[in-house]
C-alpha cells in the first residue's frame, strides 16, 4: 500500500491555554476528495494552517506522502507538492491577474530566485500561465489588476494561484464563501476539474458543494473529529446532526 497523501497523527494545537485542535487523527488517501465541515471556530482553518506549515503543532505530526512535514517551513512544504487557498482572499492585490498566476507558476518551473534573467524569457512559464488562466476562465481579465476583480473572480483567482504550481495535494478553505448560486456552481466545476487525479481537502459551509464534491467527509467540532465517513453515512449520523447540521435540510442524495 502506498502512504496516504496526508496523514495527521495525534495532532494538537493550543494558543496559550486554549486548546484549539485536540488530538486529531486523520488519513487522506491519494486521489481522494475530502471535505471537512464543522461549526464556526471549530478549528478547520487552524487545521489547514497546521498542515500547510503556517503553524507548528503543539504536539503530534503531519506527513505528506509519507514524509514528515511538521515543523517544515511553508515554502518547503509547498515545494513538496502541497498547495492551499485561504478563507479570506489572499491574492497579490496590486498585480494583474496574469502576474498573480505567473507568480504561482514560477517555482514549479524552476525559476528560483533568479535575478539575472527576465521573467518573460521563459516560454514554459508563459505557456503554463496561460493554461491556468484558461482553465479558470480568467483569460479575459488577464491584465486587470487583481484588486479590481469582482469578488467571485477574486475567489477564482485564489484557486488559480493555488493550483498554478501543479501541486498534487490541494487544500481549499471555503472556496465558495460569499458566492451566489450560479457562481458557486461554476466554482464547483472548476474545483472538480482542477482536482482530477489529485488529492483535495476542502472546508465548506455550503452543504450543496460538500455533498456534491466529497468522497469522504470529516466533521470537526471543538477541535475534535467526531465523524469521518462517506457522505451517505454523515447524512444520517445523529451526532453530526446535533453538533453541526441541526435541522438544516440537506440536499437530495442524488444530484
Amino acid at each position, binding site marked *: 500500500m502506498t502512504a496516504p497523501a496526508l496523514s495527521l497523527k495525534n495532532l494538537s494545537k493550543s494558543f496559550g491555554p486554549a486548546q484549539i485542535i485536540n488530538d486529531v487523527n486523520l488519513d487522506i488517501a491519494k486521489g481522494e476528495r475530502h471535505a471537512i465541515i464543522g461549526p*464556526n471556530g471549530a478549528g478547520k482553518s487552524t487545521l489547514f494552517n497546521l498542515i500547510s506549515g503556517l503553524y507548528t503543532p503543539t504536539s503530534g505530526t503531519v506527513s505528506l506522502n509519507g514524509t514528515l512535514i511538521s515543523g517544515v517551513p511553508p515554502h518547503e512544504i509547498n515545494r513538496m507538492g502541497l498547495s492551499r487557498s485561504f478563507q479570506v482572499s489572499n491574492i497579490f492585490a496590486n498585480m494583474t491577474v496574469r502576474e498573480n498566476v505567473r507568480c504561482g507558476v514560477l517555482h514549479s518551473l524552476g525559476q528560483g530566485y533568479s535575478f539575472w534573467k527576465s521573467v518573460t524569457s521563459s516560454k514554459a512559464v508563459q505557456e503554463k500561465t496561460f493554461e491556468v488562466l484558461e482553465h479558470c476562465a480568467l483569460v479575459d481579465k488577464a491584465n486587470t489588476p487583481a484588486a479590481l476583480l*469582482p469578488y467571485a473572480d477574486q475567489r477564482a483567482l485564489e484557486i488559480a494561484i493555488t493550483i498554478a504550481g501543479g501541486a498534487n495535494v490541494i487544500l481549499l478553505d471555503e472556496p465558495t*464563501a460569499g458566492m*451566489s448560486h450560479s457562481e458557486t456552481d461554476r466554482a464547483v466545476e472548476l474545483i472538480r476539474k482542477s482536482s482530477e487525479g489529485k488529492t483535495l481537502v476542502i472546508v465548506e459551509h455550503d452543504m*450543496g458543494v460538500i455533498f456534491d464534491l466529497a468522497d469522504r467527509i470529516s466533521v470537526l467540532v471543538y477541535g475534535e473529529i467526531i465523524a469521518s465517513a462517506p457522505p451517505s453515512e454523515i447524512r444520517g449520523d445523529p451526532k453530526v446532526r446535533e453538533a453541526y447540521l441541526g435541522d438544516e435540510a440537506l440536499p437530495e442524495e442524488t444530484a
Partner: protein
Amino acid sequence: MLEVKDLHAFYGKSHVLRGVNMEIMPGEVIALLGRNGVGRSTTAKAIMGEVAPKGEILFKGQPISGLESHKISRLGLGYVPESRDIFPSMTVRQNLVLGVKDMKNPGKYSIDQMLDMFPNLRARADNPAGVLSGGEKQMLTMCRTLMGDPELIIIDEPTEGLAPKIVQQIGDTIAEIAKTGVAILLVEQKLSIALRIANRVYVMGHGEIVYGGTPAEFAEREDVRKEWLEV
C-alpha cells in the same frame, strides 16, 4: 421608528446593497432573513455607519445616513455585530462599563441588574471576557449594548456557530429583551428562532428585500422559502 429607503452600499467596486427598503415600528421585533452573502450584515453596517451608505435612513424621523457611528449610537441605536467584538483582555464588568455612554447619566439598567438577569455572567463578572464560552460572549455583547439604553437594537447572527442548546437560550434572551419594549432588528439564518420571536420578517436576496410579512403569512409562502432561503 427606523425607516430605510433605497439604501445602496458598495465594497470598492462591488455593489452589495441595491436599494433596500424597510421599516421598523417601536417595540417591534423584525427578523431579516436571507442566504449567506446576500447583504444582511451589510445592511446592518450601513445603518450603523460602519459602511458608507447611499440612500435615506431615518431614525425617529431624523436622517442618520452618513453620521459617525458614535452619533448614531447616541441617538438610541444599539448594535451587536456578527463578530461580537468583546474586549477580551478586560473583565466582564469592565466590558459592561464600556457600554454606558455617559457615566453621569446612566440608562435604566445597572450592571447589577444585568448580572441578575444573567447569572452565568455574574459567576464570571471579574474574569477576562476572552475566556467566556461562545454563548456567554454573545450574552455579554447584548448586555453591553443594553447598558447604553438603546431604543432599537440590531443583532447580527447571534446564534452563529453556537451549539443548538445555547441557540435556544439566546432566543429566550432576545425575547426577554423585546418584552422590555426595545425594538429589535434580528439578522438571522435559523428560521426556527426567527419565526418564534419575530413580529414581522423580511427576506433579502441579492442586495434587495424580496419579501416582507408576518411569520404566519411567511409560513404559507413555500415559494419564497424555496427561492430565497434554501441552499
